[in-house]
């Protein structure tokens, strides 16, 4: 099963908003995933096991360079949601 990390400042606030929307979307596409929520301050490259990281905040450069990171901001603002969902799905099906 593929793994999705949802990351925000607290690991609970905006990432929980993402959780509902991302899970709904992936379910509708029939993509099964395991989801974990983290705080951005807990992100150390050696410990990450994710197929895609969706983050509502910017990630440290060492993470951006080594992992597939999708900005979750559009899911909060509602502007560009579809593209974001597609990017997440693409990262999980490739």
């Amino acid at each position, binding site marked *: 099963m593929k793994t999705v990390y949802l990351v925000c*400042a607290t690991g609970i606030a905006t990432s929980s908003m993402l959780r509902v929307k991302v899970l709904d979307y992936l379910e509708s596409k029939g993509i099964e995933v395991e989801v974990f929520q983290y705080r*951005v301050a807990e992100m*150390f490259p050696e410990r990450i096991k994710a197929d895609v990281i969706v983050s509502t905040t910017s990630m440290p450069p060492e993470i951006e360079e080594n992992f597939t990171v999708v900005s979750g901001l559009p899911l909060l603002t509602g502007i560009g949601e579809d593209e974001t969902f597609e990017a997440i799905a693409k990262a999980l099906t490739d």
Partner: protein
Amino acid sequence: MEAILIQIGELLGSLGPLIVLPVVITILGLILGMKFTQALRSGLTLAIAFVGIFLTVGLLGENMAAIGNAFAERTGTGLDVIDIGWPAASALAFGTPVGNAIIPIGIVLNVLLIFLGLTKTLDVDMWNFWHQAFIGAVVTFVTGSFALGLFAAAVTVVMAIFLADWSQPLIEKYFKLPGISFPHLQSVGYMLLAAPFAWLLNRVPFLKNLKLDPDTIRKRLGILGEPIFLGLFIGVILAALARQSLVDIILTGINVGAVMLLIPRMVGILMEGLSPVADAARKFMQKKAKGREIYIGLDSAVLIGSPAVIASGLLMIPVEIGLALLLAPLGNRTLPFIDLADGVFVTAMIAPLVAGDVLLTVILGGIVMGVGLIGASLLAPAVTDMVASAGSIDIPAGYTNYTVMSDGAIPHSYIFYFFFRSPVFIAIALSLVFLVVHYFLAKKPLTEAFLGVKEEEPKKKK
């Protein structure tokens, strides 16, 4: 009108949040066009989250109150007020009568402000109305009036929206986030207090040359970014200072770690319940505001990935503890605890005031939190009352006190506390004058030129 409000307040208070919140949220969801089962699921999830939150807040009370009292007695510091942290405080605030009503009020006020052309900010971050609910609860506690609490909460909703407009250009430039603003009373309130000091510090040439490297700090202190380790450290250190037995020292460390992990998990459930309603509200408001130039108002959590914010946020941990001890003779009674984990919310909107200079950000954060600790101490009776009303903690008479460092430190929290200790008409007049000040701030947004920030190489953001 007053009489009706009093009755509504009493009714909400007697039913309690477990009944009122799901009803309010379900009805709100239906008005916003959600399907009945969806809306009900949201309301129910919220209520169940509250059950979990109250359970875990009870855990916090039992374990931490003992250590707080021992700490105050054994060290002679007088720090006998425990910081319960924002996750618990947010739930307590939403659970008050003002908190039950705040989300619909916030949405209506925001839509109204946009229609009147008074703001460009469309606040889609329902969650953070809890800060205003908190202030409303404090005012209700001080005055005994639900109506005045509601008034204070409504006024501060408008203030946060005005401050979002005021800070928007600077935040957009620094974080490269176009079209977004931050009506998050906590961070933007800190920013308001820090701004004049930033103006001053940016003109001191010597300070600017002491560069601290954010990446080094982040890597060295990174482990403190994990709540369970931070909880262990803080618990062990404070219990050791309180001269507990070795077993108790270790147990305290584990218990504080538990509190730091468990309460947020419960709050996460609350967020999941709120999320679909917030989404429906956002769509509703965006439809209403169609064709206007707007900023989408978000949680300042979005800003926290920036290395300067994380580094200075981690440095706030020792600074806050040091300040608490240092300011004890000046009236501080707050023992920083759970909110130590979230120094990043202090620094998120302060860092741009000084172009992300870590040292200057920490100095400004220190000023804000120094005043804030004393503010939080003043609010302790109000917070203790909220904790007691939640029914989960037995509070020994006149002894244990609780506060919440993060929200007690928001200037608006202690300013409204002072306002409403005056006679009602003076309090209302002062609130309205303060509101007008915010209006003029919104008209004249903050610029780098005013702050004297030198043009720095901007932060990389994809």
